[in-house]
């Protein structure tokens, strides 16, 4: 309720302040202008193409990260020797913003979809690996002992104890990975791309089309918000 009021207040002042010339509408635009820009963009036709490009980059990169990150993380959590081996570079990567690697990725993969998929992958795979690994390590020892006391094989212990017990941590990794993936795709497109939502934002910015630019920004934030909310819901479900 209060947040609805807050949003309404914000929109109202955003609409009114430029009209009263308190701020320069050239830089801020107004909700009504953004709305009509939105209609333009939807009618215009390139939106669907750009959205499709960005979405496929995002989906491909994130799917790869999921497919590789969860098994790798679970394995690292299970085998300490392996973990000691990769822990320092992994933590270094975890602390590095994935976008710092963008120039070198472009050097390797060019400015097509491949480099964006790679940026999304690198950004989201690391939190997934790190959190899955932590999940396995946090499994309470008595649970494993209990399973073994009932003659569990190593496979049983993994499937019936380790896996379900680390699921909540894996989901945290997935949620963090999702937001890094959205960030990765948009920013990578801004710098090295000729299509996609990020590219549009950059172009519109250079062309001082604040109203059109904001439509794309809103689109991205709605998408990101939707995803992380869904991930959080899923997270609550698996966390007993």
């Amino acid at each position, binding site marked *: 309720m209060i947040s609805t009021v807050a949003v309404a207040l914000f929109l109202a002042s955003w609409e009114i302040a430029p009209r009263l010339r308190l701020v320069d509408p050239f830089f801020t635009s107004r909700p009504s202008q953004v709305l009509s820009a939105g209609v333009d963009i939807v009618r215009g036709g390139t939106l669907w193409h750009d959205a499709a490009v960005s979405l496929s980059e995002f989906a491909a990169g994130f799917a790869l990260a999921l497919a590789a990150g969860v098994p790798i993380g679970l394995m690292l959590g299970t085998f300490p020797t392996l973990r000691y081996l990769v822990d320092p570079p992994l933590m270094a990567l975890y602390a590095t913003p994935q976008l710092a690697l963008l120039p070198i990725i472009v050097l390797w993969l060019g400015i097509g979809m491949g480099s964006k998929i790679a940026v999304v992958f690198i950004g989201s795979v690391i939190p997934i690996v790190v959190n899955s690994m932590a999940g396995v390590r946090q499994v309470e020892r*008595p*649970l494993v*002992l*209990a*399973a073994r*006391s*009932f*003659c569990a094989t190593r496979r049983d212990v993994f499937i019936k104890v380790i896996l379900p*017990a680390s699921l909540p941590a894996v989901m945290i990794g997935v949620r963090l990975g999702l937001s890094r993936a959205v960030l990765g795709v948009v920013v990578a497109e801004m710098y090295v791309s000729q299509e996609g939502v990020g590219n549009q934002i950059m172009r519109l910015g250079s062309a001082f089309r604040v109203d059109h630019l904001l439509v794309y920004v809103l689109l991205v934030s709605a998408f990101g918000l939707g995803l992380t909310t869904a991930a959080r819901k899923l997270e609550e479900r698996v966390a007993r």
Partner: protein
Amino acid sequence: MTPHIRIDGLTVAYDKPLAGGAFIAVANLSLDVPRGTFVTIVGPSGCGKSSVLLAIAGLTKPASGRVLVNDAPVVGPGRDRAMVFQEFALMPWRTVVENVRFGLELQRWSGEDLTARALRYVRLVGLQGFDQYRPHQLSGGMRQRVGIARALAVDPEILLLDEPFGALDAQTRESMGDELLKIWEQDKKTALFVTHSIDEAIFLGDIVVIMSKGPGRILETIPIDLPRPRPIDLMDTPTFVEYRRRIRHHLTSETPARA
């Protein structure tokens, strides 16, 4: 007649991860447990009583000596033994009945409806109506009932209980002990029960084994000559009080006040 469990010169050692060398938890301990007896092991913390149970369960390898069950050496966990843990060790994502099913699944029980069997044991420990609850929705006492039901459901010959009521408040603890005895008296499985509590040890046990620490060894083995079934007010009788006095005497005189 051979004892159900024979512990023969058991030594259990753990590696010290930082200091190097090994920590001797149990040193050269021998004990015979006849079939159908309820043995309680009492002693200060760190005296290795849990390690004795883990060795019988086949969950820890002796540094030397051995454990025989039905004359066969223990080399790992087996269907003839089931354990109840102090920390309950329930799977938080499983419901009560699913937790009781857990051991049946792992032991690959077949030829009967496992859920129906699990439900029977849920009822046996007085949790009817709670079968769809998850552990975090239950009190400590109820959680340990699930732990007990899970162990009983696989119909073991030997029940190993590692301070099962250690995490419970005093009142719950007493009534849980009372109920455990009632269940136990139905078929008198061989039971080993580790505890801190002298009263609990006397009330439950046919034999009380007193252990000392540094490293773990047996100070004394005291047969408890009290009739069964044992009512809860047995604890106020002179014989009980006399047992309590004797055991406490052993524990205090033999354990230098270190901590």
